[in-house]
């Protein structure tokens, strides 16, 4: 601390010292004069005795212990001066560094926000989510019913609590004239308490809000929602708003910065669990022998709550084992009378605690690997840029050989020269790092937008906080050392002036430069190969046939449940929708369905067929209107479509997909067969060809279609219109037609299904695009690097070339010689690149589709491209070498 103070006050201290030493000198001179010396002689003697004012001051300054920093500042000033003298080089270097460091920081900041950063709650490492499932299950199950949560809670020791929360769902928040869609979550009263999250205004929910009989309907808003919908109006707390039409009181605003436990999916409104039925909240659930139209809270068959608990490390095992024991006891009891197969299967289930320090994130699973691959690529680009800058600095150093030689002759020590060389590269890196902050911020935002599955960017806070800035600073420092060390070492080894001026021109062939260029080519090969793979993968996905006419279907997603339609009003609504959309010019036919194509919304059911001893098996369900298959273009391979005759009250019929039929019966000749949830209540009347109804990337599901008319309690959420001609132009007309026919019906989205499917490929697009950009950058940098090294060596050898030409060498042989020399570097670099690809290909294995990561075609393309770029980059200086004027070259000697 005092050291720093001395550093900052060094000018004042210098002045003090000067005064003091001068005072000393005067006293000494006075004394000497008193002893009889003349004034002049006394002054001389005094100066001799003291040893020189400046020497004393210098020695005292060193005693201050801050000269390291003072020297460093002087070095930086020197570096800035010398950089100002070559503005072109400086600008190019700073820009290269700014883009390199900025791109790295951008990818890192997104990776950090999505994958590494802990939740903004206290001691987040203590938070755990409860999950259950058999070890063989693909995805863990986090859902529990409310009654089961109560039973598990009872098994917990002491004050440990199980906070419960629903999935995040869409509701409408009405304030005054506005009615905005918001993301909402139903939570138990103790949920905030478990998380340790308090209120910024008013209060958060507490256990008093849990009691349906006593409590008044209340909600808590997130700070962001408060700002966006209420402009931070202090009167918001205590006011009444409507949630899906239901009046509720805002009791508080959660503390700023907290927006739920799902990274990238902020929650705006939290409401007590019991409001689920009142506000009509239908988030993710799985149901079993229950009625989802009745309140979910008391039903043991509806699992819709995720449980979170707080357990210090010492107690985690105890909490987990108590919960697991209790859970197992319940399973044993419930399946006591089931057949042995089913019981064995059920008892494989285990309950476990899962650390929740970083929150949930569906995006993390999808983008974690791609972001890591991008991080690696962009890191390689920076490495390549470092190699380039090192080459440039070395060439600069060689050009300044004279200056360095003079300094060595005057007694500059190697350590001092090394420090000066490094301070130049570190100054460059620092300047580049400063500019990179802007690049990082814009890049991070762009990256998020590109990664977002919908047109609205994922909400992830990418503040330029200390973490991000620290990363950029460390990266700049490492970069500066990386590209500055080799040139600085070379400068420090410089010979004194005499040796350099002997007239014998030492021809540096820059062996280090050649190694750098070969490594640049190797790294570029890796990047180009990866980018080509990702581009081909995207192409392969886009060529996948979904099994329906995606580019001719306009899909409107509607929300009749939110609008408050009663069951008996639905048939009329459906008819009006079909008529209105059917009347739009260009629309050939219309159908309705529960879940739209390509939306990713999925309902799974467990089905049995008579005589199957293996118990129930899963199929995906949808409800559609007559003519739906013809409308969307799904091919019927057997039997018939649904017709208007398949009405409510008549025996239930269904159409299944080939995959479903083969899975259950081993054949697709299944028309007339029966199956059901328990009893075989459905008769198969038709079989359709398999289609990728979810997302192109997902496996082909086993589908069961029911007539919408036979399920009067299902709300159709999607209108599909088959259009002729330009579908894009009809989108707006369809929206207008629905809005005109049903002004009160919220329309979530009207899109072409092919666009929707493409959105599902946002990850592949992001990878293809960014890897393409990064590999182009790498290619350009490597080409510049190669050009630089060859040009430098040609310039060094220009008198050799002149002599060769004077002695009768043919110019094109010179050209071939130089080019052949550079091709050596290219071949070594590409060979090394192919070797480097071997460990890298494992990283991208899960990200490619339709081809292998060692696809020979892709790799040869990359090799050829790089070889071509290499030859082009080397040809120019080689050509120049062949055109050397012998007379001039020899005179230059």
């Amino acid at each position: 601390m005092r050291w720093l103070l001395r550093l900052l006050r060094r000018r004042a201290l210098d002045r003090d010292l000067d005064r003091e030493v001068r005072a000393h000198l005067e006293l000494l001179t006075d004394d000497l004069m008193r002893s009889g010396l003349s004034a002049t002689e006394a002054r001389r003697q005094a100066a001799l005795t003291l040893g020189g004012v400046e020497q004393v001051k210098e020695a005292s300054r060193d005693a201050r212990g801050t000269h390291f920093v003072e020297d460093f500042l002087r070095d930086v000033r020197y570096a800035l001066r010398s950089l100002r003298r070559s503005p072109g080089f400086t600008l190019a270097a700073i820009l290269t560094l700014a883009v390199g460091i900025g791109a790295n920081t951008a990818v890192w900041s997104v990776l950090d926000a999505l994958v590494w950063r802990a939740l903004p709650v206290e001691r987040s490492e203590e938070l755990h989510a409860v999950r259950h499932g058999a070890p063989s299950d693909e995805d863990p199950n986090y859902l529990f019913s409310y009654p089961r949560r109560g039973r598990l809670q009872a098994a917990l020791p002491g004050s440990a609590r199980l906070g419960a929360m629903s999935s995040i769902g869409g509701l409408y928040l009405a304030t005054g004239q506005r009615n905005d869609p918001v993301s909402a979550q139903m939570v138990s009263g103790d949920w905030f308490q478990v998380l340790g999250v308090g209120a910024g205004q008013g209060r958060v929910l507490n256990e008093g809000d849990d009691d349906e009989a006593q409590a008044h309907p209340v909600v808590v808003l997130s700070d962001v929602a408060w700002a966006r919908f209420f402009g931070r109006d202090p009167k918001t707390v205590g006011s009444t708003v409507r949630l899906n039409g239901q009046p509720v009181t805002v009791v508080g605003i959660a503390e700023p910065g907290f927006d739920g436990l799902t990274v990238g999916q902020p929650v705006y409104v939290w409401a007590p669990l019991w409001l689920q039925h009142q506000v009509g909240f239908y988030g993710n659930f799985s149901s079993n022998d229950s009625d989802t139209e009745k309140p979910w809270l008391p039903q043991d068959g509806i699992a819709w709550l995720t449980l979170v608990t707080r357990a210090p490390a010492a107690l985690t095992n105890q909490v987990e084992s108590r919960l697991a024991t209790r859970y197992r006891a319940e399973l044993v009891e419930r399946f006591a009378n089931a057949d042995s197969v089913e019981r064995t299967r059920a008892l494989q289930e285990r309950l476990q605690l899962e650390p929740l320090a970083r929150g949930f994130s569906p995006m993390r699973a999808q983008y974690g690997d791609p972001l890591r691959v991008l991080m690696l690529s962009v890191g390689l680009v920076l490495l390549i840029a470092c190699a380039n800058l090192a080459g440039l600095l070395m060439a600069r150093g060689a050009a300044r050989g004279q200056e360095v030689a003079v300094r060595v002759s005057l007694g500059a020590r190697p350590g001092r020269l090394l420090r000066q060389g490094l301070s130049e590269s570190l100054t460059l890196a620092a300047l580049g790092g400063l500019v990179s902050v802007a690049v990082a911020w814009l890049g991070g935002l762009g990256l998020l937008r590109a990664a977002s599955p919908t047109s609205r960017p994922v909400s992830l806070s990418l503040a330029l906080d200390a973490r991000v800035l620290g990363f950029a600073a460390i990266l700049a420092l490492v970069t500066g050392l990386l590209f500055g060390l080799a040139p600085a070492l070379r400068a420090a080894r410089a010979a004194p002036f005499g040796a350099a001026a002997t007239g014998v021109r030492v021809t540096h062939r820059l062996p280090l430069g050649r190694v750098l260029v070969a490594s640049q080519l190797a790294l570029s090969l890796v990047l180009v190969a990866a980018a080509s793979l990702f581009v081909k993968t995207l192409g392969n996905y886009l060529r996948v046939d979904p099994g329906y006419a995606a580019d001719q279907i306009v899909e409107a997603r509607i929300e009749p449940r939110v609008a408050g339609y009663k069951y008996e009003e639905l048939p009329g609504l459906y008819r009006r929708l079909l008529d209105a959309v059917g009347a739009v010019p260009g629309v050939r036919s219309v159908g309705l369905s529960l879940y739209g194509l390509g939306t990713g919304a999925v309902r799974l059911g467990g089905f049995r067929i008579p005589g199957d001893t293996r118990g129930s098996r899963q199929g995906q369900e949808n409800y559609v209107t007559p003519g739906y298959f013809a409308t969307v273009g799904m091919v019927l391979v057997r039997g018939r479509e649904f017709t208007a005759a398949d009405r409510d009250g008549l025996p239930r019929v269904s159409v299944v997909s080939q995959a479903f039929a083969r899975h259950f019966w081993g054949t697709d000749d299944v028309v007339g067969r029966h199956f059901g949830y328990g009893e075989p209540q459905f008769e198969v009347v038709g079989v359709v060809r398999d289609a990728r109804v979810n997302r192109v990337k997902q496996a082909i599901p086993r589908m069961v279609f029911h007539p919408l008319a036979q399920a009067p309690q299902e709300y159709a959420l999607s209108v599909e219109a088959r259009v002729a001609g330009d579908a894009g132009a009809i989108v707006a007309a369809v929206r207008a037609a629905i809005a005109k026919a049903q002004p009160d019906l919220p329309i979530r989205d009207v899109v072409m299904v092919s666009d929707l499917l493409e959105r599902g490929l946002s990850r592949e697009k992001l990878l293809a695009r960014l890897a393409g950009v990064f590999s182009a950058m790498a290619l350009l940098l490597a080409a510049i690097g190669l050009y630089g090294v060859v040009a430098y060596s040609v310039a060094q050898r220009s008198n050799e070339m002149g002599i060769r030409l004077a002695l009768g060498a043919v110019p094109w042989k010179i050209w071939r010689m130089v080019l052949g020399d550079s091709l050596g570097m290219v071949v070594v670099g590409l060979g090394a690149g192919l070797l480097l690809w071997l460990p890298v290909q494992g990283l991208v294995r899960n990200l490619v589709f339709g081809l292998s990561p060692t696809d020979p075609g892709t790799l040869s393309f990359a090799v050829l491209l790089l070889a071509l770029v290499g030859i082009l980059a080397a040809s120019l200086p080689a050509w120049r070498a062949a055109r050397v004027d012998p007379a001039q070259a020899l005179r230059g000697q």
Partner: protein
Amino acid sequence: MTPDPLVRPDLLQGTLDMLVLRTLADEALHGYAIAQRIRLLSGDRLAIPQGSLYPSLRRLENQALLKGEWRTAPSGREARVYQVTAKGRRRLAAELREWRELSVAIGLVLGTS
């Protein structure tokens, strides 16, 4: 006749610091006076190299063993006067103890005591 003072440019850094600290323990002095006082106390045998005095004062000040302030002497001259701090006194005591032990030990080896 007084003997020629022993000017010892190679006077050990630590020794010089100790001498300065000891000199200032009795009285606050400015730099020139410190040099004079050391010479006087040593019976003109020891003249410290005046050029090393200021680095030594800086070192001691940085360790907070001394505290310097500008004062105006009765003659009207300004001078920076140094005072030993409490920490400085503790250090001096420790150093003196060490010095005595060391000199006894060296004396024993050299056979002079």
